């Protein structure tokens, strides 16, 4: 609970800074962005993140769960390893490569964000299944649960919190990476930040960067709450030591 208090304080501070800069109206020779510019960019930013995370989830969860099956164990290294390598390439490079490949526009930005957001979800989806006690599955089989029943009643509830954690991490990362989307023709808060960079005006950089950070923190908090909600009650209890 402690870290949430700190995050809430930070969130308030960041939103306060954003509102303050916006209220200035003018810094030096530049006008600050208006409230409606800000809202428009924030919404575009959120949409981009949302679409990218939904696509990354749709790809990673089934893939991770599948690769965790003993039958597909030869695929573990290429899939997880591949995603790992993807993560080591700087986000700027991934985004930059997209422009020549897919042209300028939202599509390039989203593809880049999906590629970059895959790994945390994929890794957690894989781990979530792998970390289920084999005895639990053996007992379920021994009692005559079918494969589908085991997946639905046993594996899914046990894996859900871990998968959700992966989605949360991926979302937070994507909010940050999406700042760069503007470079390949995407929308979002990056536009404001980048304007500040070109104008060499720190306060305008802050006007773009502060709400981005605020969005990352807010989404992180919301998804953490969802994660907790989705954790079955029996798993929230700390194991007693005997």
């Amino acid at each position, binding site marked *: 609970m402690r870290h949430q208090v700190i995050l809430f304080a930070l969130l308030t501070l960041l939103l306060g800074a954003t509102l303050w800069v916006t209220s200035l109206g003018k810094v030096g020779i530049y006008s600050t962005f208006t409230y409606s510019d800000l809202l428009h960019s924030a919404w575009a930013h959120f949409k981009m993140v949302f679409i990218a995370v939904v696509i990354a989830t749709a790809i990673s969860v089934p893939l991770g769960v599948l690769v965790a099956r003993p039958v597909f164990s030869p695929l573990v290294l290429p899939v997880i390893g591949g995603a790992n390598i993807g993560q080591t390439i700087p986000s700027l490079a991934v985004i930059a490569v997209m422009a020549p490949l897919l042209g300028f526009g939202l599509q390039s930005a989203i593809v880049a964000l999906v590629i970059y957001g895959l790994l945390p979800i994929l890794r957690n989806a894989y781990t979530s299944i792998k970390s289920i*006690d*084999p*005895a*639990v*599955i*053996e*007992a*379920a*089989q*021994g*009692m*005559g*649960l*079918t494969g589908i*029943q085991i997946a639905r009643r*046993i594996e899914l*509830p*046990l894996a859900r919190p871990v998968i959700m954690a992966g989605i949360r991490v991926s979302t937070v990362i994507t909010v940050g990476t999406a700042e760069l989307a503007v470079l390949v023709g995407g929308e979002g808060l990056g536009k404001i930040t980048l304007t500040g960079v070109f104008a060499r005006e720190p306060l305008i950089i802050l006007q773009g960067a502060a709400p981005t950070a605020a969005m990352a923190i807010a989404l992180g908090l919301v998804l953490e709450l969802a994660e907790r909600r989705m954790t*079955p*009650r*029996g*798993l929230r*209890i*700390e*194991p*007693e030591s*005997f």
Partner: protein
Amino acid sequence: MIRLENVTKVYPDGTVAVRRVSFEVLKGELCVLLGPSGCGKTTTMKMINRLIAMTDGSIYIDGSDNSTMDETELRRNIGYAIQDVGLFPHMTVGENIETVPALKGWTKAEQRKRAEELLELLRMRPHEYIEKYPRELSGGERQRVGVARALGGDPPVLLMDEPFGAIDPITRLELQNEFLKIQQEIKKTIILVTHDIYEAIKMGDKIALMKEGQLVQYAPPADLLFRPKDSFVAGFVGADRGLKGLQLIRTREVMWKSPPTAHPDEKTEAARKRMKQYGIDRLAVIEPDGKFRGWASASDAQGAGRVKEITKISSVAAGKNAVLSEALSLMLTSGSDVLAVVDQHNRLEGVVTFETIQETMREAVQGGASQ
């Protein structure tokens, strides 16, 4: 009830895990699959509910070939309990036990009733435990719930893979004893896998001793101990088979039934005469309602007076189902060479002496050697 015929398991890499194993377990019997690790005992067990597919041979359950039965249907009618228990951590104790009843389509009320019954049977207060989660239980409690869950759908057959393995020795003994009592009530046909010779002797009606995938000897525990088929069996049961045999014989089988006794209000002289008449130096003193009270010894019974004045009150007594090793340990700790055997209401059923135990063991070992 369960019949294995030439059951064989060969893995794709050519390893023969089980080779032509045949034996039959009668209805209501507890059969122990015993052997060193890697001998194929667990594999053999798992072929019964088809968690492992057999390569050759057949297994009949209640007359029908298990390879022709629907896999899930087969498993729902065979209870399954394993060493690591594998309780579903996101389900309550009640929901865990209700798994198979739910799959079988029982009503919610029937499921709950069954869960309560089974918790009761395993000596866990239903209202206290039914809503708990596995993480809130101790190791021993989890094992109990595991057994309760295996019994959930009231299967006629139970497969248990080291069900008392992962717990401390004291809890294990307790659970074994309780399970034996429960088995007397429920009379399931059970196959239990263990590598623990003591557990095998204690629990098994029959023991199937395996080695390197083959069945070496299939016999009641006493035969395995005293009539080992070959040097492997003799080596496995160990040189101290006389001592192990103490676990096989129950006090009621060797006790002196309706021994002479004394009443507290009797004159000591009468008691002394009775001791002389039977050639013993101690009499069990019992209350008018038959409850065991203590001992009166000949050396104290010289003077006049009543028996109650010379009675050494004792609460040390064995149940009639206790095995001789327990009786012996009671004697050793109480420093007495005679032990009262009582029923559950503490009424005297008989007495066991140290000589009786010695005699019994000597006969057993010699009987085995002469074969």
